[in-house]
């Protein structure tokens, strides 16, 4: 019935020279942090050629998006970059809100931004902490993970879930913030700041760590741009692009923060850029939490935001809106929109084509991992096998985001 036309790996078709070896790093290897495969051609311990095979966790979100309503698709975005879930939620919801041309109350935007920045810190903790683990330094990760857990606890109180938060709704938040939210966030900042410095002196300033990472897996600025890099990996190569500054969304033009920039795009510079971004994120959170406004947690638009349940039982109008929203979803006007947000890994873009139905005609997700990870073979050619692990780890490849 089916005839295999191409070999699965082009490396396998090649006739290997004498003494060369093909090594599979993955699909499930501790250092791949997810199900993705790298086939590496080795001469001794030196990498001659490499190839990445992805698709092991592909779940066809773009096809599902053509069936789901706009609020239902939110649960798909949870499962893309599962290390910093709220950032994906916010990206999707902002795209839909822009298409509907609705304004949300200031408080909603403030809370979204606070949660975004805390998620960014969470994501960078994972990336830098696990990079240490992959290089054989375990204690650095433990120092920061305690504070990551604190952020998770705030998310849990805020949304009811830790990993799959489904944080926003079109027109507002799923529910109001809890009373001690401000206090909790301030406690996190207070604890995290010294922990970051501690991590820096414990791991990043360590001589062994520097020797292992300095100049390893580097990429030039031109190549990074040509490959479509974005986020910390691009900034580590010396390109100061950040959508929060270049094309501000939410209130990023009103807060004060800097963009850290590296030099040679090596593992060390990626780590340093992420360290500094954590500090800047905390700076943003501090500014926001001190000026957190009061008010409603959603816009007052009954045909878009689900009405209060107590009113649904009593009033006819609310009952109708409730029924229409549950059964028919939000009708987004005909048109197309591309919304880019700065997620933890870089530019996360949602491209929506709407034909005025309850679900989009076409959804496309521009996920940052997918673009920068294709340069992996070029980055590791000529380096040692142990360096490929450091390179992959520092790029922060999330399999869920890669495959989507």
């Amino acid at each position: 019935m089916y005839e295999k036309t191409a070999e699965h790996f082009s490396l396998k078709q090649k006739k290997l020279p004498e003494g060369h070896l093909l090594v599979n790093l993955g699909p499930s290897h501790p250092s791949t942090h997810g199900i993705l495969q790298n086939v590496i051609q080795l001469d001794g311990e030196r990498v001659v050629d490499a190839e990445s095979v992805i698709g092991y966790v592909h779940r066809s979100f773009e096809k599902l998006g053509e069936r789901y309503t706009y609020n239902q698709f939110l649960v798909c975005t949870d499962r893309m970059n599962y290390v910093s879930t709220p950032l994906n939620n916010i990206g999707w919801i902002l795209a839909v809100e822009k298409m509907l041309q609705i304004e949300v109350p200031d408080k909603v935007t403030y809370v979204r931004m606070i949660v975004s920045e805390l998620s960014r810190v969470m994501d960078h903790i994972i990336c830098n902490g696990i990079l240490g683990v992959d290089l054989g330094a375990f204690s650095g990760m433990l120092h920061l993970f305690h504070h990551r857990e604190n952020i998770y606890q705030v998310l849990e109180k805020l949304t009811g879930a830790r990993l799959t938060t489904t944080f926003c709704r079109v027109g507002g938040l799923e529910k109001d913030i809890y009373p001690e939210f401000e206090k909790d966030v301030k406690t996190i900042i207070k604890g995290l700041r010294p922990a970051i410095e501690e991590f820096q002196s414990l791991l990043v300033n360590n001589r062994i760590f520097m020797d292992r990472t300095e100049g390893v897996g580097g990429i030039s600025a031109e190549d990074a741009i040509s490959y479509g890099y974005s986020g910390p990996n691009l900034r580590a190569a010396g390109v100061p692009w950040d959508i929060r500054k270049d094309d501000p969304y939410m209130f990023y033009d009103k807060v004060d923060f800097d963009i850290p920039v590296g030099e040679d795009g090596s593992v060390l510079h990626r780590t340093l850029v992420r360290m500094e971004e954590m500090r800047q994120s905390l700076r943003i959170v501090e500014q926001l939490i001190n000026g957190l406004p009061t008010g409603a947690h959603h816009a007052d638009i009954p045909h878009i935001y689900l009405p209060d349940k107590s009113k649904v039982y009593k009033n006819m109008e609310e009952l109708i809106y409730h029924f229409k929203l549950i059964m028919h979803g939000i009708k987004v006007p005909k048109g197309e929109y591309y919304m880019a947000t700065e997620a933890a890994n870089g530019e996360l873009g949602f491209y929506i084509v709407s034909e005025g139905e309850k679900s989009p005609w076409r959804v496309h997700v521009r996920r940052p991992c997918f673009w920068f990870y294709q340069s992996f073979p070029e980055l590791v050619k000529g380096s040692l096998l142990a360096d490929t692990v450091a390179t992959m780890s520092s790029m922060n490849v999330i399999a869920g985001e890669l495959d989507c």
Partner: protein
Amino acid sequence: MKETIQSFLKDKFPHFISKEEEILTNLPTFFLKPEGIATVLSALKTAPGIELNYLNDLTAIDWLGKKTPRFEVCYLLRSGNKSSTRVQFRVALEEDEQVPSIISIFKGANWPEREVYDLFGIRFAGHPRMDRLIMPDNFQGHPLRKDYPLEGFGQDYLVEDLLTIHLKEDMEA
């Protein structure tokens, strides 16, 4: 930005402009003929004052039953110097038509082009490796086409094939 590019295209590549269709979008959009896409993008990459040197996104849309030709390949570009300006170029295609690959202009077009081939069945001429990227090699059909059923055709053949492939591999080894 839109006017600059429009006059640049009309000035240098009038034969590659395919049509001017008004669509509701937040991106300035230009429709190009398939054969011209590589030439135009490489010219725009270095054109002074435009410099669209960053390939932001590459995807396709299946307009089955809504528009002819059926497919549209969308190239989203951005300028490195003025990074907030994004411009979209579109190529309309019939089912068996091919587009030139732009991998020689942007290295990053490698995987996105393979992804579009995998999920839509649109071939890119000149791509060094036009294989499936995400779906298994023995997968049949292109899942993001509108006529591909949401629940799929069933995957019994996939499992059978995978079993025999691995058996063969083991026996050969």
